[in-house]
């Protein structure tokens, strides 16, 4: 670590994006999908998550701290890039730009979402089907959620692609092409899960 803090930070940023933040995202989307089974099914699933032991410990070390590090360092990375898709309109360069844009959108969305749900819960509000139903009955908030969820999923799926490169798992051009297709598949599948859950509340 000595003398190569940047290398360590970048690798840590990359790792945290997948483990645990990426895994949490997938888990969260899956739990929300219980909303498609009706109010009771969602409330049961959410209640199960809420009643996990050591909840605040889990939340802090699996979600808050990793996400905070990834988001803050991610902002720094995003703003040191000088995007140039107008001159170099290649597919990967677009993905590079969208990875940064979706990161910033996700940050705005997640900050609002945590405020509206987890922070309000700390103040005594109850996070349940009804709460989400109220939030999403406002068309503006509904679209805000759609955009936020899709951008988080895009960011995760495309991030998975670059994670595989950053750690040297996909080296050959062919493996990188195949992982592009696989991550597009993950993007589409998770988007269906996420959007179905949101529409279940209205």
């Amino acid at each position, binding site marked *: 670590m000595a003398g190569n803090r940047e290398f360590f930070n970048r690798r840590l940023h990359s790792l945290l994006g997948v483990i645990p933040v990426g895994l949490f995202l997938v888990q969260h989307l899956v739990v929300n999908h219980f909303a498609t089974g009706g109010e009771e099914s969602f409330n049961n699933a959410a209640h199960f998550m809420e009643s996990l032991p050591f909840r605040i410990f889990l939340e802090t070390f699996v979600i808050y701290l990793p996400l905070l590090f990834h988001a803050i360092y991610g902002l720094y990375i995003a703003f040191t890039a000088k995007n140039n898709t107008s001159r170099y309109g290649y597919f*990967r360069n677009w993905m590079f730009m969208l990875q940064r844009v979706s990161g910033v959108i996700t940050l705005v969305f997640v900050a609002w979402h945590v405020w509206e749900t987890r922070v309000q819960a700390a103040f005594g509000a109850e996070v349940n089907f009804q709460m989400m139903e109220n939030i999403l009955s406002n068309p503006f908030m509904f679209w805000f959620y759609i955009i936020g969820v899709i951008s988080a999923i895009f960011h995760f799926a495309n991030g998975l692609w670059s994670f595989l490169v950053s*750690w*040297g798992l996909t*080296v050959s*051009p062919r493996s*990188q092409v195949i992982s592009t297709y696989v991550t597009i598949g993950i993007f589409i599948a998770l988007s269906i899960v996420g959007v179905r859950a949101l529409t279940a509340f209205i």
Partner: protein
Amino acid sequence: MQETKTKTVRFVISRQDTPDSAPYQEEFEIDYRPNMNVISALMEIRRNPVNVKGENTTPIAWDMNCLEEVCGACSMIINGKPRQSCTALVDQLEQPIRLEPMRTFPVVRDLQVDRSRMFDSLKKVKAWIPIDGTYDLGPGPRMPERKRQWAYELSKCMTCGVCLEACPNVNSKSDFIGPAPLSQVRLFNAHPTGEMNKAERLEQIMGDGGLANCGNSQNCVQSCPKGIPLTTSIAALNRDTTFQSFKNFFGSDQI
């Protein structure tokens, strides 16, 4: 006679008198000749430096050396893309032909830039094979022919700077050394004698401004005039540095 007289080539050239002065544009129109390239056109302008308004002006400054796309000195932005002006044929370019310096590097004058940072990076990553000693070390290990052919492709780099110009992470806000010197690390680490300093080179690119700054836009591999598999080199080095960092941390054999 009259027909050949009317055929001309038009240039819009971004000029800059000193490293710190503001850039400005100047237009030129010269007579067309068959098989012209951008350099022969610049030479034509130099012979008679008069712009389209008929004003006398200074000749344009640019760099060149080999004139056959092996030295990299003549790189500039031609119609929006960084490339070598010696192999940019006028017949294949849309007019007016727009020339700009590669502003990722400090501009010396007009189209001339200072690529010193690239040569400094090559020194930093030890892009050579140390064989000097106080006595004759004898012949080194042999390299398989197939591997030699593979390595030859990586050795074609002419330090032209096009890949740095194309990279969104090489800019004034970052100290990323860029794709070219990274790929050279892969080249010299692949050599049976160069491999003896593999860990040293990897440690160097694990330092600040090194490998980890790559954000995978992959513009470099699309832009390299020599077709060097830069992104494959970067991914391969990502794997090598993953192993190196484990070796360093867990304390097994670090060479």
